[in-house]
């Protein structure tokens, strides 16, 4: 495989952004950082979309590969070694220039850098580290950086990367080890989970060292027990970080003897390791797993690896590979399934649902006609109706048509007065869903029955249009996860 040397920056950008586009995450959220006074840039925890591509996804980062050259041959991937495509590679300087110039024109929040495997995992990870270190140190870039951890790269590089990137991610690729063996013969579950575990350890060990402005986040990091540590312990840890950090900087010089990286001095590194946490993604529908399987895997990742996000990517047969599900004329990309998984993911992260509440071995797949929350509510009618003026916050959250924002508003507003159905509308409750499940001051909105078939029929009418639009996405209107989008920008963006 030969990397084309004579390409212009424009051509490289076309090739290497095209090759990166199947990575779904484009989030820039999760970290608040003011300008440090030495250069350009800051980061906003809420995430900012700078554009939307013609597939309707949020664009917030310059999402590119360092190179699309790859020694591996993953069946689902456009960059696999057996494909005959033009190969290109950026130099670190080119990436820095693009990032800086795009950033100051407000095109982007920052950089999302991934790469095919060039030479070896270590060689690849070294180049990626070099690039972000250059961006932070020489160009004083203070915007957002999302960096991929390359499976099989050695621990030193993983340890280094997180001091320069806001977010780290290692792709799980496929939900099961078997699927991986089938489709990505050069990767293994172990090679993927090892860096993931390492990143988690680094985040835990170094997440509670809060300096300066970050100290406001003490409460949050106490999940890791950090906030409870005494001042002495913190100081000691901070010392060890600083010296360890010094050690790392020393390492860089080892990596690149006398090379570009000797510019690294003091500035540029984070005060914490990967402050925006870790995420991953898996491909949906290339292999045989059930939805139940996928949500339990996601749940385990959240619990055991402390991931910030799991992204789901509807499989697209880009290589027209006959051993993978066929998609003639682009039909059959499992978008509705992906959508249901994001909804379920949302329920697990923000609504306190457990995977076993949503699905089971007996009921392994999501209902195509109903969203997971409605589906759950209908099979738990014994818990309804719920009285709006009395039910606690978590009970309210479980009512279809009531989201995080509206539940909060209800809890506050009912301190002042007894709420009626008109009031609920003002609070953003979607009554056409909620009306089957609630009472206001003891009364239902209409004369509806608490009956499974009856409610299902009523709700499917509401849902049908949505689902039709997801499947026929050319005419698809609004990819809102639930109806609780009011006042919460984040909820609008599935991939953000």
């Amino acid at each position, binding site marked *: 495989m030969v990397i084309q040397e004579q390409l212009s920056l424009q051509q490289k950008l076309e090739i290497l952004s095209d090759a990166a586009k199947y990575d779904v995450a484009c989030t820039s959220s999760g970290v608040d950082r003011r300008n440090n006074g030495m250069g350009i840039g800051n980061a906003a925890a809420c995430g900012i979309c700078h554009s939307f591509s013609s*597939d309707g996804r949020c664009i917030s980062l310059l999402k590119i590969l360092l190179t699309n050259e790859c020694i591996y041959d993953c069946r689902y991937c456009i960059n696999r070694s057996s494909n005959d495509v033009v190969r290109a590679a950026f130099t670190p300087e080119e990436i820095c220039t693009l990032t800086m110039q*795009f950033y*100051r*024109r*407000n095109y982007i929040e920052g950089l999302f850098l991934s790469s095919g495997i060039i030479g070896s995992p270590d060689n690849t990870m070294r180049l990626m580290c070099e690039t972000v270190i250059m961006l932070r140190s020489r160009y004083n870039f203070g915007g957002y950086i999302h960096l991929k951890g390359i499976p099989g790269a050695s621990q030193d590089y993983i340890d280094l990367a997180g001091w320069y990137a806001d977010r780290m991610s290692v792709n799980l690729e496929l939900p099961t080890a078997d699927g991986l063996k089938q489709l990505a013969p050069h990767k293994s579950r172990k090679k993927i989970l090892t860096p993931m575990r390492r990143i988690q350890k680094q985040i835990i060990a170094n997440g509670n060292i809060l300096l300066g402005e970050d100290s406001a986040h003490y409460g949050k990091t106490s999940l890791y027990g950090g906030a409870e540590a005494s001042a002495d312990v913190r100081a000691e840890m901070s010392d060890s970080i600083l010296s360890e950090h010094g050690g790392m900087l020393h390492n860089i010089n080892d990596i690149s003897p006398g090379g570009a990286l000797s510019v690294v001095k003091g500035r540029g590194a984070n005060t914490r390791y990967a402050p925006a946490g870790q995420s991953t993604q898996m491909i949906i529908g290339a292999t045989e797993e059930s939805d139940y399987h996928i949500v339990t895997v996601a749940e385990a990742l959240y619990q055991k690896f402390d991931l910030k996000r799991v992204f789901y990517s509807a499989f697209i047969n880009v290589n027209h590979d006959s051993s993978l599900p066929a998609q003639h004329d682009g039909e059959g990309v499992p978008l509705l399934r992906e959508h249901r998984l994001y909804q379920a993911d949302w329920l697990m992260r923000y609504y306190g649902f457990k995977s076993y509440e949503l699905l089971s071995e007996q009921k392994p797949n999501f209902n195509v006609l109903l969203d997971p929350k409605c589906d759950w509510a209908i099979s738990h009618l014994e818990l309804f109706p719920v009285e709006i003026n009395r039910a606690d916050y978590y009970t309210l959250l479980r009512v279809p048509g009531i989201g995080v924002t509206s539940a909060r508003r209800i809890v506050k507003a009912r301190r*002042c007065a007894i709420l009626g159905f008109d009031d609920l509308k*003002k*609070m953003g409750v979607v009554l056409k869903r909620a009306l089957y499940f609630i009472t206001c001051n003891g009364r239902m909105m209409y004369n509806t029955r608490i009956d499974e078939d009856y409610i299902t029929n009523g709700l499917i009418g509401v849902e049908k249009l949505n689902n039709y639009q997801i499947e026929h*996405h050319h005419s698809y209107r609004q990819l809102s996860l639930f109806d609780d989008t009011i006042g919460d920008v984040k909820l609008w*963006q599935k991939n953000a």
Partner: protein
Amino acid sequence: MAEERMIFRCEDSVDGIFTAIYKAWEYGTSRSSVELNICATMRLFVQYADVEADYGIALKVADTIRNRLSEEVYNIVWRAALSDCADKAEHIYRFLRKGFRMGASVIDYRQDEDVNAVCRMSEYAGREAHKYTGFVRFEENVNGVLVARIAPKNNIVPLIADHFADRFRQENWIIADVNRGCAAIHRAYMEPVIMMGISGDSIAARTTESADETEFKKLWSSFLNSVSIEERRNRRQQMTMMPLRYRTFMSAEQ
């Protein structure tokens, strides 16, 4: 005469609205209301008083809201006053009357019409401001100054200036609202200044592109083309998330 109902009319600005509210309050809350002087309908049997915006008075009102209610309530009222809703002045007036009775928790009282209206206007302006933190496009001119033009519905320049001042601290930049003729002007390492009465011509005169500008625009445009996934093509979704009205000055997104 003093028994008569009085409507205090003011210009569409935060200072104007706050000043009119102050005057209306003085006159007596039970027989006064506040409206923008762009509201055309005149009614019979009411008196109208035109109020000149007064910075000193407006500041007093602002401080009172901050001190007697809270910083959070103040921010909500401030954003609502920057929204483009025609009846905002009266809603804010009534909201504040309730607020001074109930205290800072007035914002939890969403079932109330005025509270709901003010919160909604505030969210509306806030949401547009948030969108523009992403959709503002700077063009580098021959002097190296970054110039952005926007045409927002709400008066959001004051809402986004600080964000960009922090982000692009070391840059000289201008964000101009071409409809309102107001602009945030930022000199490197200084606080941004909001200026009124900026003409379209004076902005246009500052938009001669630098040599690099054309190249980076082209690069950005090809990036946008290549990141999109054909199999997921969904123009309507794109339209929902980024309606055309935002794109007037986004040359690559049209």
